[in-house]
């Protein structure tokens, strides 16, 4: 059964990556209450699940938001898809609602044509939260560079805002 979400829920967004995961906690009227990156060494999925469990216990979110990586064609690795499933199971066991959004839905929220780059989203978010995220905006990635670890934070914030936009739109 789909759990109902209160008005202005406390949203914990998780964006898994090759290093660990980025997270963002949104509450009240778009207050960014916490954000960051957790890097895990060794068994990444077990480490990430343990960290997420700690965060659920600490912040007691109303809802957890993740990227829906199960939509074909898969654009995430098998490990990250497995991690997503483990987090969903963990959230259900902790009685926290879960919402999954495909990447296309995130882009639709930020771009009129529904297509753009992660860096463009990061720039929009850095402008929305200049004090919190402005100085964390990484330089634009060049073809020979690997993705900056800070991008995970922006991915998580974007996911949390998709849910916030949807829940406020449904109530108006």
């Amino acid at each position, binding site marked *: 059964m789909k759990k109902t979400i*209160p*008005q*202005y*829920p*406390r949203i914990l967004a998780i964006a898994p990556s090759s290093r660990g995961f980025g997270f963002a906690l949104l*509450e*009240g009227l778009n*207050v*960014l*209450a*916490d*954000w*960051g990156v957790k890097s895990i060494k060794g068994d990444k999925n077990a480490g990430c699940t343990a960290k997420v469990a700690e965060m659920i216990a*600490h*912040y007691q979110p*109303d809802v957890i938001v993740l990227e829906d990586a199960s939509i074909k064609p898969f654009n995430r690795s098998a490990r990250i898809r497995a991690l997503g499933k483990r987090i969903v199971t963990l959230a259900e066991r902790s009685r926290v609602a879960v919402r999954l959004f495909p990447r296309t839905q995130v882009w639709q929220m930020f771009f009129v044509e529904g297509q753009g780059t992660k860096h463009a989203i990061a720039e929009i978010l850095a402008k929305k939260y200049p*004090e*919190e995220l402005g*100085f964390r905006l990484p330089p634009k990635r060049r073809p020979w560079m690997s993705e900056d670890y800070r991008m995970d934070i922006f991915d998580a914030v974007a996911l949390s805002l998709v849910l916030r936009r949807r829940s406020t739109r449904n109530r108006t």
Partner: protein
Amino acid sequence: MPSPLLPNYLRANRKRLALSQDEVAFLLGTRSGGKVCRYERFVRQPSLETALAYEAIFRRSVSELFPGLYQKVERDVAERAKTLRERRDCKANGQTARKRQALTELAQSLA
């Protein structure tokens, strides 16, 4: 009904200024970041002096830094204002119209 807010936003504000827990501890005048960590994990509540030091560091009011705690205190004050307004001895002592108005406003605005 909105969810209750977190007890404090100390961690968010520390991250906003890119300060470490040890650096905040130094600014607060404590020895290590352990105490700061406990404040941020909602395990311990800072003293009034520390709360004011936080206000000075982060340039945010105490009610903004401790929104959940403020929300709770505000609700408790509203409840007590309601009780005080209804109290018999209060009426018997010749409660002025001004006092009654103030208590009504307090109970209504914070409810």
